[in-house]
């Protein structure tokens, strides 16, 4: 083919431009660590990464939600623990009170202690979490749920659930179920014990109150067990979420990030190609028939 001067220069220029652009792209990949900066450069990988990012962001949020659930269940666990020791103490007192060897003066002292325990129970029922919300008053979380007057417990909250989103589309009830009847039952048991102690009603003490307290301790145990299951579930979801987030981070990286060794090798190849093009062009530019004509 006939090669015209303009063509020769155009081809040199185009090749230099191409080699330069390839070299620059390779440099860009090494510098940014990304395989692409636009969707059009690799639509499939970009959309996969987009989906993975979206899911990861969601899991991050769910993980934060787990912390909210943990705040509730963790506090609940501490409170139930305390209640357990309160009821245990009451149980000990009931057994002592039921003994014929105990004097009425001692029983009166015990009744006073039970009164303190009752107050302690009410205080525990009014436990506040972060932001001062009452954790046993259901959704009316700014209302103090329990108050005791004249030997009876009044409940001002509700039994509605505090639902926390713990998994995509799945919620967990974070607060204690039926807090009103739970606390009321315990309080009534204590109150009966107290009046029986005061009245020196030994038969009632040994036949009813001791059994009542045993049942109450069982109730507390059951509530603790249920709560502990929730805590375990939260821990499990937390570690599962971490694992999945790690997986997704890897997926995103696999789709978006370069393999540095590969990228650097490619950059070096591009550099060699660029140098070669420049060399060829500079040699070609130099040659002309004019140099050989006198």
């Amino acid at each position, binding site marked *: 083919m006939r090669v*015209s001067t303009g063509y020769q220069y155009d081809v040199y220029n185009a090749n230099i431009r191409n080699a330069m652009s390839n070299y620059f792209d390779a440099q860009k990949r090494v510098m940014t660590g990304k395989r692409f900066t636009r969707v059009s450069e690799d639509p499939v990988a970009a959309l996969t990464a987009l989906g993975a990012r979206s899911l990861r962001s969601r899991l991050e*949020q769910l993980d934060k939600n787990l912390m909210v659930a943990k705040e509730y269940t963790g506090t609940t666990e501490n409170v139930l623990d305390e209640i357990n020791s309160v009821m245990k103490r009451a149980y000990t007192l009931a057994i002592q009170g039921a003994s014929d060897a105990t004097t009425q003066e001692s029983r009166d002292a015990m009744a006073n202690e039970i009164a303190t325990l009752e107050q302690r129970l009410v205080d525990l029922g009014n436990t506040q979490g972060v932001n001062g919300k009452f954790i046993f008053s259901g959704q009316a979380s700014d209302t103090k749920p329990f108050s005791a007057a004249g030997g009876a417990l009044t409940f001002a909250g509700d039994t509605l659930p505090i*639902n926390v989103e713990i998994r995509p589309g799945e919620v967990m009830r974070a607060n204690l179920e039926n807090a009103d009847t739970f606390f009321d039952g315990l309080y009534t048991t204590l109150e009966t014990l107290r009046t029986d102690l005061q009245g020196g009603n030994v038969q009632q003490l040994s036949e009813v109150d001791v059994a009542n307290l045993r049942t109450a301790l069982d109730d507390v145990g059951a509530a603790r067990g249920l709560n502990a299951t929730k805590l375990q579930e939260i821990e499990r979801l937390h570690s599962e979420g971490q694992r999945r987030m790690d997986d997704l981070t890897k997926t995103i990286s696999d789709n978006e990030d370069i393999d540095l060794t590969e990228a650097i090798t490619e950059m070096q190849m591009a550099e060699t190609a660029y140098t070669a093009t420049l060399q060829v062009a500079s040699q070609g530019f130099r040659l002309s028939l004019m140099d050989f004509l006198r």
Partner: protein
Amino acid sequence: MPGTFSGINMASNALRLFQRALETTGHNIANVNTPGYSRQTVEFKTQYPLNYYSEGWKALGQGVGLSQIARIRDSYLEASSRNSAGNMGRFETLSTSLGQIEGIYGEPSETGISAALDKFFDAWSALGSNPNDTGARMQVQGAGSMLASRIRNAFSQLQSFGAQLQSSATTAVARVNELGNQIAGLNKEIRLFEGTGGMPNDLLDKRDAAVRELSGLIDTKVERFQDGSYAVYTAGHALVDTGGSHPIPAGSFDPVAGTFVASGLTYTVKGGTLAGITQATAQVEDQKAQLNTLADELREQINVPHRTGTDQDGNTGVDFFNDSVPRSGAIDFNLSAAVAASPRAIAAGVTGLPGDGGLALAFSQMRDVTMAALGNLSFQDYFSANVGQVGTQAAYFKAQMETETAVAEQIANQVQATSGVSLDDEMAEMMRYQRSYQASARALTVLDQVTEDLIGMLRR
């Protein structure tokens, strides 16, 4: 019998011609960088011989004559290069436009609409799980405002890009008309020239270059008349005919429909930059419509349940996003005035109880719900699909442009191979004509010597 001085005539004639040839070579060298220039050659012919009778008829050669100064041009290549210019114009515009739209969305990144949608639903999930937390409430307000502003910004950027396309269409139409005038002017000059039997090479080159540029702007058809003038049809409209040029009326090009109206007739543009602008405008309009749908569907899906909720101040019927009847789309998409003013106006639940996060949880779970108005896709999928489509289209048009560039280069190479100036060739030619000139001069000297000898002989 040939005359005494016929040899001198012949030699001086050859001298003159070789000088023309040298000048043509110089012209070629001078135009080595001129775009659209076709190299020219001097074509020689023998002069009609002198016949005389001397022991039979003899034909005595009369030296060299000039047949024509021709330009080296392949008309088939000319037509292909016009075609490829049209495709180039179209795909170049489309490729850069799609690149622009892609740039407006800026996906995948933490600063795009997609990330904002995630953050928005995440914020609702946080509020639903912790309804009386002021931080979570502010998170919803912030995420909502960010989502709205990103959608709004993308829309306004699309809008200004659309306006930019419109103005480049106006520029392109103006250029089409300018080229039409230029071609009509050249037609007139060429007609005059060719009428006298000459070849106005440089004018022809200029006209071909103008037609080629025209084909890059709009689909162009050319017809050559006997008198050498061109009739040029752009999108079927006779832009140039023997009567002169008939410009496309300013402002009559509609980039959305891709049509223009001239002398009462509507023409549809099918090629070149203008067709690219039309297609790109369609893409922009499509994207704007998608953002409008997204914004209005967010209003529908969030506001309607939100109104049933009770906010922290006990109010009901509060909108989360600004809303009106009919809905206004993405252009003014924002939080409602109440929510923008205070995060207390956000309703986390229907009852308004401080621990009720029911509504917020429902909003959080809405991200998985497919919406009929979004073609049975969820918000995130709808937007991702859209971004994916833009990306795929951008990749497609980029590949098309690369193909067309390769084709155009191929044709340009072929054109260069025939019509391009090679300095080495021209140097060689120059040597050849220089030597020929020297030889003719030498012949003239010899003939002059002979004549002088003859005159001297007579004097004795």
